[in-house]
């Protein structure tokens, strides 16, 4: 799965996710990536989110929207809300991660599994790349 979240000069957030799904999947199984609120979500009042991981758990936890809701209703930071939603996924037995960018340019990339490929660029054009485990 690949994804991107962005914040433009007008303060608008956007999120995008694309995937080939899971190897050997059957019966037309669909994961969280194309499901708005589960694997992909954006709201100018809070955050843009793109997820990757074990889709069934991200769907059940409505992860991307849950992260936004924690920021909107509880006033949590993007980092704290990101940490919370990935913990929920992990507590149910799922794994994966997400990227999130809030309206002020703060980002989070929590995960609980190996093989996380991440990249970010700052307003000044500084690029950071990491392969995390």
């Amino acid at each position, binding site marked *: 799965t690949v994804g991107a979240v962005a914040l433009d000069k007008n303060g608008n957030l956007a999120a995008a996710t694309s995937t080939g799904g899971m190897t050997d999947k059957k019966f037309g199984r669909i994961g969280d990536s194309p499901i708005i609120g589960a694997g992909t979500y954006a709201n100018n009042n809070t955050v843009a989110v793109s997820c990757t991981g074990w889709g069934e758990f991200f769907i059940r936890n409505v992860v991307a929207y849950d992260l936004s809701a924690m920021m909107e209703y509880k006033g949590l930071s993007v980092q704290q809300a990101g940490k919370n939603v990935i913990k929920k996924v992990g507590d149910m037995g799922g794994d994966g991660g997400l990227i999130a960018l809030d309206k002020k340019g703060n980002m989070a990339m929590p995960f609980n599994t190996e093989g996380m*490929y991440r990249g970010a660029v700052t307003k000044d054009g500084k690029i950071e790349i990491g392969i995390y485990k």
Partner: protein
Amino acid sequence: SSYVLVVHGGAGTILKKNMTPEKEAAYKAALTKALQTGYKILNSGGSSLDAVEATVRVLEDDSLFNAGKGAVFTHEGRNELDAAIMDGKTRSAGAVAGVTTVRNPISAARAVMEKSEHVMMVGPGADKFAKEAGLEIVDPSYFRTESRWRDLQRILREDSIKAAHSNATVQPEKLGIKNRDYKFG
């Protein structure tokens, strides 16, 4: 720092133990290219929506990642692609699932958002809509890579060996389908 663009390139695609310096360099180069593409749009005053679409298109076109060209195979040996996009300003959203012929599914998702009254389309209907929206259509073989095909064959072989040596029914793990560490993204 104030960030303007963040990307991810998959979960569990390659475990650390299988990562070579050459592979790592290739992944970093691909992610860098994607970030540069999106940043150029943002830095010139373009919209976040244009930036995320263009960024994801770069990753879809790169066979290293499980999206677009290089996607994993289903049990039946097909590449079935899913994508979604959302605009934080209007909360408009578009998504496609199970498409097999549109070269860049993320652009199909955007077309659903902007050129239809719907949010999600699936299967052949979504492919047809993408074609009518003027998006590039390819033969399904465009998405195939040999390494992903070998991954599927290995998994099918392992499953058939297990089935031949056990009468036990495989129980779903917890609330999900059976977990495989080799889920390849």
